[in-house]
């Protein structure tokens, strides 16, 4: 990163950055389009339905049509809403979600910013989205939206704690928070990946991550059956689309993070399989996690709000702390890798 700061800024550099950003945006938008399609298909199959199958071949253009509809919809702002914040909230939600993608290493040399506090960067920026959700809920001047915003703030702050704590074990084993070094540390056979030595941490991470994503069974901020649609009741058209886009970009980011932190990133499961490029392995693991998230959504019922808070503070946090303790003991007794 340092080398770019000291160079004089030319149109070439600026253009290079712009191109990089546009490329990531394109990848992400294609991902989001087909993640939504895939999610509806998977849930449909699990519920013995067909899912979307009319628009385009096999329904592949369904999401495109949906998004086109959203973009052409009338843009409504409630008369008594706080206009400035109502407009600002979707932007404030989207920008950090896109920024967190900068640090994700897809391969050994395929990364935008090699930051030595990679994981912390993700957690810090995702906190800004929480503000946006609360603001969106508050500025709508609607009690359901406000309730949704409040719940969201409480939930996301509570689950950030176990999410961070569950990764401390990995940081202890790797002696780094740098995502690239964490992946390099997991080289070798698949039992060198962090998910086996850090099985408790992995479990805590997955639960906390689903909750951070506000997805079922933790989708209380937008519980349809109680709160109509939660914090985005009043949003429609492209502002609503931005909230949705944010949500799915976080799915992308969390799936990437889980791949990197616990499933060995771009490493092949066995050294003999190294001839297959790392990007393929990364994509495979990534797809598995995304499928897992959809599977969970189709399977589990929603938690109650009091159970939700209890789960974060009384179950996940002690487990995460226990994991840190066990990791420390393991490193002390058996050295690295055995912990």
């Amino acid at each position, binding site marked *: 990163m340092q080398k*770019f*700061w*000291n*160079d*004089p*800024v*030319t*149109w070439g*550099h600026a253009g290079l950055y712009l191109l990089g950003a546009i490329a990531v945006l394109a990848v992400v938008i294609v991902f989001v389009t087909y993640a*939504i399609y895939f999610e*509806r298909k998977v*849930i*449909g199959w699990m*519920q013995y339905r067909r899912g979307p199958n009319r628009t385009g071949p096999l329904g592949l253009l369904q999401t495109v049509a949906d*998004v086109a509809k*959203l973009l052409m919809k009338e843009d409504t702002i409630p008369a008594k809403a*706080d206009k*400035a*914040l109502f407009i600002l909230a979707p932007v404030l939600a989207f920008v950090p979600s896109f920024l967190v993608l900068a640090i994700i290493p897809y391969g050994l040399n395929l990364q935008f910013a090699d*930051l*030595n*506090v990679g994981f*912390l*960067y993700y*957690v*810090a*920026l995702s*906190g*800004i989205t*929480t*503000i946006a959700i*609360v*603001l969106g809920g*508050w*500025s709508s001047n609607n009690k359901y939206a*406000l309730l949704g*915003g*409040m719940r969201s*703030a409480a939930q996301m*702050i509570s689950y*950030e704690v176990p999410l961070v704590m569950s990764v401390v074990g990995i940081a202890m084993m790797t*002696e*780094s*928070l740098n995502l690239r070094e964490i992946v390099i540390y997991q080289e070798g056979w698949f039992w060198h990946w962090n998910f086996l030595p850090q099985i408790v941490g992995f479990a805590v991470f997955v639960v906390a991550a689903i909750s951070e994503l506000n997805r*079922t069974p933790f*989708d*209380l901020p937008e*519980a*349809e*059956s*109680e709160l109509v649609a939660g914090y985005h009741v009043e949003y429609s058209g492209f502002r*609503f*689309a931005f909230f*949705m886009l944010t949500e799915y970009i976080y799915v992308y980011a969390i799936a990437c993070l889980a791949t990197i932190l616990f499933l060995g990133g771009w490493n092949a499961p066995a050294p003999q399989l190294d001839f297959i490029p790392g990007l393929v392995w990364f994509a495979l693991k990534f797809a598995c996690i995304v499928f897992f998230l959809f599977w969970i959504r189709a399977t589990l*019922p*929603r*938690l*109650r*709000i*009091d159970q939700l808070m209890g789960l974060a503070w009384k179950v996940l946090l002690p487990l995460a702390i226990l994991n840190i303790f066990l990791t420390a003991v393991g490193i002390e007794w058996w050295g690295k890798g055995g912990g």
Partner: protein
Amino acid sequence: MFNNVNIEFTGEFFAFFLLAVCAIVGAVLAINFAKVVHMAVSLAFTFVSLAGLYVLLQAEFVAFVQVLLYVGAVTILMIFGIMMTKHQSEGSETGRPLLETLAAIGCLCLFGILFYAIRSASFPVPTGELPADNTMAIGKLLYSSYAIPFELVSVLLTVAFIGAVALAKREPEGGNGEGAEPAAENKPAPLSGEEGKTP
């Protein structure tokens, strides 16, 4: 394209300029806004810009902890608190000319002092290279040379935390102890089978 000006237009210069302007704008807006929620948001804007300045100084750890704590936690708590309270009678404060004049004079004096102090201060160039992985260096220092202050701060925070809980849980005198607690009832959520989330 920028060669005819004296300043070197590196990426660092642009980033510093942008972040500094953002920090100042956020701070000024925080004072000028009439609504408290708007103030909190512009304050968050300032915090983020400051974090950006820390990144420019190669203090990534401090920068992201700043975002995590000040933007992620403090600002949300402020907004949370503001939402719980009434906000109808805002922005109707009458002007007090004498007080405002005095405040303006005080501000100018403070600016003068700060300006003089900064201009006359000498900034020694740090000797020796910064460690490459400064996050690790911070961690090592915290747990070796500064272990005792670090532990003391954590004890202090725990005390403050328990104190806050104790204050919030204080029972009203002479009342029925059980009934004072608000009934935190939540109806069990019905199963969500529908496909409501997808647009």
